């Protein structure tokens, strides 16, 4: 005997069959993330994964009505391994899109391969300028920024609003630190400031004492560090008693929330610029911060925000093409036209080079509710990677480096 209820359920199943089969044939949307789980970059890798997983769990693991198969590969922070992992994701797992990686040198190591393979590459953190400037890969877009994008407005702010005229810069001696410093210098000098001296410390320098001793007596020090280096530099700077004497101006990652929770009084009062702050008002950000704090216990920063935005960008693009991720051309075209209104960081859209046009926030570290936060003190709206400069003129000049724009 078949009960009435069973009959109805059976009929429902039969009716649902065709569409279910269509989706089963297509399978899930396969997303491969390149992250770092070991070594010095592991903290950033974990934060990036946290941000993306939060996005997926908020969507119950579905984007544009389709299920998501999310795969994570560990690059160990090594360019060669990043390439192997990217190949595995593409050739073995057949991912539709690669999200990540953590470091710029990893992104550069896999960019050519993903371009040849024609795989959409959604970069959530690596900020190397030329990825969206002079070495364009049509399959590449990013959700973070170029290195110098937040530093241009910062340079102007420091000269005009803070009135500092003479600045010494110190930065990690690799592309990220050099590009940040160059961007700051260009805008700062254009606004009437002078960069007195540029100091470069090796990425794995054990002690900043000898650099701190060379700072002299400028109006302020511009410090551009990534990862743990910001923490180490700021502590040693305070240790030398300079904190009360010469204010620090920070690049985004110097006082990023990802490392800010490990800091103490040495970080208080530092003015910095970034495309995100966990202290931003607005519902989208408050929800994002609350949810991630439940997972991790600390405020999200650069890596988590960039990866969460990558999720939003994927969703935006896939909704516009009805989830048909298999149509690579259409998917990529949609990805390049992404516009997000309710991102935690505020609204942003991609320029024609694949880099976000977004708000840049001038932030000041303060202690609120027992923890350090980057309070927003000024907003530069809709800042492009080219700042106020003409894009073609910008691109015809060499890429920012140690000695460019000006040798010092």
């Amino acid at each position, binding site marked *: 005997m078949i009960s009435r209820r069973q009959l109805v359920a059976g009929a429902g199943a039969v009716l649902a069959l065709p569409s279910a089969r269509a989706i089963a044939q297509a399978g899930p949307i396969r997303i491969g993330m390149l992250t770092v789980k070991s*070594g010095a970059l592991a903290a950033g890798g974990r934060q990036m994964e946290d941000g993306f997983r939060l996005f997926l769990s908020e969507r119950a693991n579905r984007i544009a009505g389709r299920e998501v198969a999310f795969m994570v590969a560990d690059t160990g922070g090594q360019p060669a391994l990043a390439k192997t992992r990217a190949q595995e994701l593409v050739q073995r797992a057949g991912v539709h899109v690669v999200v990540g990686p953590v470091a710029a040198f990893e992104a550069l190591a896999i960019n050519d391969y993903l371009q040849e393979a024609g795989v959409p590459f959604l970069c959530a953190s690596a900020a190397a300028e030329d990825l969206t400037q002079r070495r364009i890969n049509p399959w590449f877009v990013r959700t973070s920024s170029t290195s110098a994008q937040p530093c241009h407005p910062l340079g102007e702010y420091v000269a005009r609003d803070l009135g500092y005229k003479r600045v010494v810069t110190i930065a990690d001696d690799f592309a990220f630190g050099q590009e940040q410093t160059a961007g700051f210098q260009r805008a700062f000098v254009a606004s009437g400031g002078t960069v007195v001296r540029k100091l470069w410390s090796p990425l794995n320098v*054990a002690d900043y004492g000898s650099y701190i*001793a*060379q700072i002299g007596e400028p109006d302020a020090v511009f410090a551009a560090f990534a990862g*743990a280096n910001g923490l180490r530099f700021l502590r040693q700077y305070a240790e030398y008693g300079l904190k009360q004497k010469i204010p620090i101006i920070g690049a985004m990652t110097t006082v990023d929330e990802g490392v800010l929770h*490990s800091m103490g009084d040495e970080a208080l009062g530092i003015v910095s610029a970034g495309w995100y702050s966990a202290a931003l008002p607005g519902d989208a950000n408050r929800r994002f911060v609350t949810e991630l704090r439940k997972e991790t216990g600390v405020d999200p920063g650069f890596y988590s925000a960039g990866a969460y935005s990558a999720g939003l960008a994927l969703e935006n693009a896939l909704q516009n093409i009805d989830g048909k991720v298999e149509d690579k051309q259409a998917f990529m075209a949609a990805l390049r036209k992404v516009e997000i209104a309710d991102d935690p960081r505020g609204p942003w859209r991609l320029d024609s080079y694949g880099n976000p046009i977004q708000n840049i926030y001038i932030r000041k570290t303060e202690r609120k509710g027992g923890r350090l936060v980057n309070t927003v003190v000024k907003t530069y709206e809709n800042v492009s990677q080219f700042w106020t400069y003409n894009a073609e003129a910008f691109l015809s000049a060499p890429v920012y480096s140690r000695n460019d724009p000006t040798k010092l």
Partner: protein
Amino acid sequence: MFWINGLLNSLAFGAILFLLAVGFSLIFGLMRVANLAHGAIFMLGGYIATSMIGFGFLAAVLAAALACAAFGGLVERSLIRRLAGRELAQVLGTLGLAFIIADQCLLVWSGDPIAQPAPALLRGTVEVAGVVFPAYRLALIAIAAIALAAIWLLVERTTLGARIRAAVDDREMARAMGIPVSRLFTTVFCLGAGLAGMGGALAAPVMSVYPGLDAEMLPLALLVVILGGIGSLSGAFVGSLLIGLIYTFGQMLLPDLAYVILFLPMVVVLAARPQGLFGRHMA
């Protein structure tokens, strides 16, 4: 000003290097084992100290030193011992151990850098000859000097020290004379690992503790030992001082060549005096 500051910085950094390298040098001199896990033990000491800071700074340093010494003993008994005389196996074994320690640290203490506060008494700055210098770094120099004196007394003035010296010079003869060389190995390994752990704990307020610290420090320890000579206390002392000076002034005077300058003296020493400045000829 410039020179005094640089000099003090060199001494403070040299002090950290000495605590790290002296254990490495003793172990190598006695056992002919290049313990590539030495940097990882240094980092482990730093991490342990950050977890124990609640009991006070001194207790944290002590706990780190003891824990690392015990760990060193365990490693010697279980791993190093089995690899005796097989150099490649020792290198690979200790390197593998370094990776394991680093990965476990990542698991326990996460990848976030941990800032260790200096003891309250030493948090300020001191003015030395017109130069403002962090008090804690001055204390580091003093601690390293005390450690140097203590180790010198141990090696030169005690029976244990005499046995160590005898075994460094001629292991077979020492054994034939009835010196318990096997137990000596464990003792020295404990001592070396404990010193590295203490070094990591003492360096934590200056350098913080973070993944990758091990890989930064190990090459510096190797430099010190190659420069100063293997198994020699005065070699480790002079080597640390030299590397501290070269490191600091190299960065100040020729920042573009900071790393070349660091390794240049090593190349010269290896070419002209392969046993190191204070090393003895090895058969």
